[in-house]
């Protein structure tokens, strides 16, 4: 296919670290191939081309933290046939959603001598809080293999094959000895969405939940496990309140901890 016959891909950025869109540029083996199959119409980090929509597939990185972001999300939705969020920021508000528990004015005062120059909302929210999203890809950052799968699936007009089970499954697949069972290391694997390939346990540390909650979490039986392995209330709250703090399951579990 040549020229305008190819589906149009757009990559957008909201509040984020650029890591998830960098994942696309990190597909060194696939990048030129993907670029032959799609027309990269908007991808500021990689190209000065800025072609107008409509777009066949929009990938959004980052969370909504300003009023302009809200308007931009609506615009992107309106000009995109499919809208996929990439990463914990776009899917669950990201690490910047830690402001949701604080007074944003206090936060501004810590960083800026003149907070009045800064425009920001008091919350950091996922894209889905503002517009309908077709698919959410988890991870902080997302996994390269899953990203290629999602792009390929949407080009073929099928559902992406991205499993929703927990990191524990991936440890078993990888043949990693369970760090909780073998070493009593606190690990969020049982409540965390698969996708990374269970990296942390393979490197001898417990999962810290960077892919967000899995599709079925059972916190009432899981939290006592963390406690047995030495975490106190504040440790539990902090580990849940990091990169996916605004994910409803993590948010609820951390609030419950603080109440008890």
């Amino acid at each position: 296919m040549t020229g305008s016959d190819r589906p149009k891909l757009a990559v957008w950025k909201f509040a984020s670290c650029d890591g998830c869109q960098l994942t696309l540029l990190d597909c060194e083996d696939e990048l030129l191939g993907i670029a032959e199959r799609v027309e990269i119409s908007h991808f500021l980090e990689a190209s000065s081309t800025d072609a107008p929509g409509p777009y066949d597939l929009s990938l959004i990185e980052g969370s909504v933290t300003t009023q302009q972001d809200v308007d931009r999300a609506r615009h992107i939705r309106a000009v995109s046939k499919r809208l996929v969020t990439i990463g914990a920021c776009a899917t669950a508000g990201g690490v910047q959603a830690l402001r949701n528990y604080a007074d944003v004015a206090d936060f501004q005062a810590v960083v800026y001598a003149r907070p009045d120059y800064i425009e920001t909302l008091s919350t950091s929210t996922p894209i889905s809080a503002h517009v309908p999203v077709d698919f959410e890809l988890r991870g902080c950052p997302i996994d390269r293999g899953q990203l290629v799968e999602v792009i390929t699936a949407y080009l073929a007009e099928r559902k992406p094959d991205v499993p929703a089970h927990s990191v524990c499954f991936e440890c078993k697949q990888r043949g990693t000895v369970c760090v909780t069972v073998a070493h009593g290391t606190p690990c969020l694997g049982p409540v965390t969405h698969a996708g990374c390939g269970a990296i942390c346990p393979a490197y001898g540390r417990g999962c810290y939940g960077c892919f967000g909650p899995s599709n079925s979490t059972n916190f009432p039986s899981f939290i006592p496990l963390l406690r047995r392995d030495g975490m106190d209330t504040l440790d539990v709250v902090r580990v849940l309140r990091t990169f996916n703090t605004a994910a409803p399951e993590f948010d609820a579990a951390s609030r419950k901890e603080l109440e008890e």
Partner: protein
Amino acid sequence: MTHRGSRVLKVGSLARVEGEGALHLRMGGGEVAEARLAIYEPPRFFEAFLRGRSYAEPPDITSRVCGICPVAYQMSACRAIEDACGVVVDGQLAALRRLLYCGEWIESQTLHIYLLHAPDFFGCDSAIDLARTRRADIERGLRLKQAGNAILELLGGRAIHPVNVRLGGFHRIPSTTELRPLTDRLRRARDDAAQTVRWVAGFEFPDAGCDNDLFALSEPGTYAIESGTPTVMPAPHTGCLPPESDRALPTRTFGVHEFGAHVAESQVPHSTALHSLLDNRRHLTGSLARYAISGRWLSPIALQAAYDAGLGDPRQGTVCRNPFRSIIVRAVEVLYAVDEALRIIDAYEPPPHPYVDVPSRAGTGHGATEAPRGLLYHRYTLDSEGIVTDASLVPPTAQNLGAIEEDLRRIVQERLGDGDPTDAELTALCERAVRNHDPCISCSAHFLNLTVERT
């Protein structure tokens, strides 16, 4: 815009940089009244929410400031917190940290050279455009970048936000056998890196100079990356040299813990990034500064490549002050990083334990390392329970903004002297000038739309 003598030029969103920002030029009577780089990336408040976290957390958390240089954040955080706790990590653990950092230098600098910067020299919109006519070159770049990522993945667990870094060292260290497969790949990468230096050295470069102090870490005997002493080489005008001069000037140094007494951040209304001055003067960090200060400590193969590429002889103290040629300096740094990675792997003997213990104590610690884009400083204050009570992160882009704006002003002023540029020409020129410095706007924590105002 019809009247050329007096106009305002706006560039919406700057492409091929990390993060988001805008550029604003105001010109009148043949003079550039104002050139400013406005960062409109919304603030993410890291320094605020680090308060109340445990002292073990900043390496993981601050890596999320920037997906392009997470290791830099992890390393500066570790150094600062270990400093607060009175722990020094040395020997093979320090060597492994340097190896991980070499991986990030290779990946990130190659990303900038091939995917962000090189298209400018061919008038292309992107590396993907460039690949239509120069496929073999772009494939070489991707292969080289992949070699950097291979180090990050093996030692760090993944290329973006590696999971294997912790205070005192690593969660798990590789065996000699695990590291060995990297060697073949890195030997190939060394050829690709040497070829990259030759490739970029053949580009056409405008004449330009920079008249600001250069600021980088130095560590006599080695090209400073993951440790060193803050070192300043003054601007050419202070030695009555032209800004384009390639002569070195005598340097001065200060301790990392004195960073705050020398580098002062201030807020400007047009940007969410803080601007900073070094002893009340504009300064520039990054490849040009590092090369000026540490160039003579490059490995023989990188020294020779720099000399052959027309950068002069760094052993004689030759420096490069042309920001457009920063792409050559970056390529030399990539070659060095590949060579250095091979040296580290060759000398590797697994240490007895993956980390040294870092017991918490109350105090303040300072840490600075050389992110691919320049010197990155962290400071943390801990209470006796090991809880962070105060955090300060000073990223290279925030330090470089003043120098980048001065560069923009000079380059546009010089272009005005050569006749009447169109808005499109000015925009292209300014975008190139900005990309010369590889600014990372996400990490300004807080990048670019061009507005030209001709009054």
